[in-house]
């Protein structure tokens, strides 16, 4: 009630202009982990991607992908 709230979410990505946003969610997830691999664990840049994929992807998908990454079976170009 005190401060101005800023409503923010993953912006509309011109790479994915259509209704099907499955690839959008997947791409953001991969971008986040590639960013982590490139820049290390603590980086504001990477946090941005994290917010995006968390907004877009259902929690179950994220859990499954996290497990797959831990098992080494993640089917994406990390």
């Amino acid at each position, binding site marked *: 009630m005190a401060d101005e709230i800023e409503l923010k*979410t*993953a*912006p*509309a990505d011109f790479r994915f*202009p259509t209704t099907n946003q499955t690839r*959008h969610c997947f791409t953001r997830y991969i971008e986040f982990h590639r960013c982590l691999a490139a820049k290390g664990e603590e980086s504001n840049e990477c946090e941005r991607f994290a917010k995006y994929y968390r907004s*877009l992807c259902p*929690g179950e998908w994220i859990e499954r992908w996290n497990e797959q990454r831990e098992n080494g079976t993640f089917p994406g170009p990390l």
Partner: protein
Amino acid sequence: MIVLEWLFLTIAPCDAAEPWQLGSQDAASPMMQGIMDLHHDIFFFLILILVFVLRILVRALWHFHYQKNPIPQRIVHGTTIEILRTIFPSIIPMFIAIPSFALLYSMDEVVVDPAITIKAIGHQWYRTYEYSDYNSSDEESLTFDSYTIPEDDLELGQSRLLEVDNRVVVPAKTHLRIIVTSADVPHSWAVPSSGVKCDAVPGRLNQISISVQREGVYYGQCSEICGTNHAFTRAPGNIGRLLSPLWLSRTTPGASHPRSKLLQRAAGAVGSQGARQ
């Protein structure tokens, strides 16, 4: 005061179909208003054509009487009328196509970045909603399930098979992005008042962009056969409660989660700490 407002809006049904309703529900978004306008445009031409064709048909039947008109005319050609009856019906669809394509392409355009993303996940036979914009880790989404209230548990004034226990709460006059998907079989998420219907396909995220222009409670139903209780699944789990100023004022800023009391009360969120089935 707020409690009174809540009570009133909870019990008084709004934006649901009336018994024996033929027309559309009141529009709550510009998309629905566009759809209704297009419908009126097309209906005008439809009535014109209908009256014209019926007139010709009835007149021909009426005069085809062996005593009143014993000698029927045998006309097989007529160049002028043939040209007219080809040109004229091809102009009418042009008049229909112009507003139709205009609406179709404008519905697809997402001009403004959405302000909030809500995920609607269909299950057999309920909905799960996730609000994840303010997570600071993978675990913290505000998530809740939305079940249709069974008939025995309804209060006086509530709509049968439309009310749910936890409604989706959404800010009014805000560009929303709703991501619709399913966890098991195909469902479909529809809210007629907002002109929204989107299939929930497992393994696929479908995005719809809406902006609801007025506060209120909107209802919708599952629109894709999904098993035994398909008729008893509420699609949006009824989009509740668009409270623009209240939402903004109660959502804690910059916090990692929208665990505002208002949202919790509105959502009736059970276990909003990310606990879900």
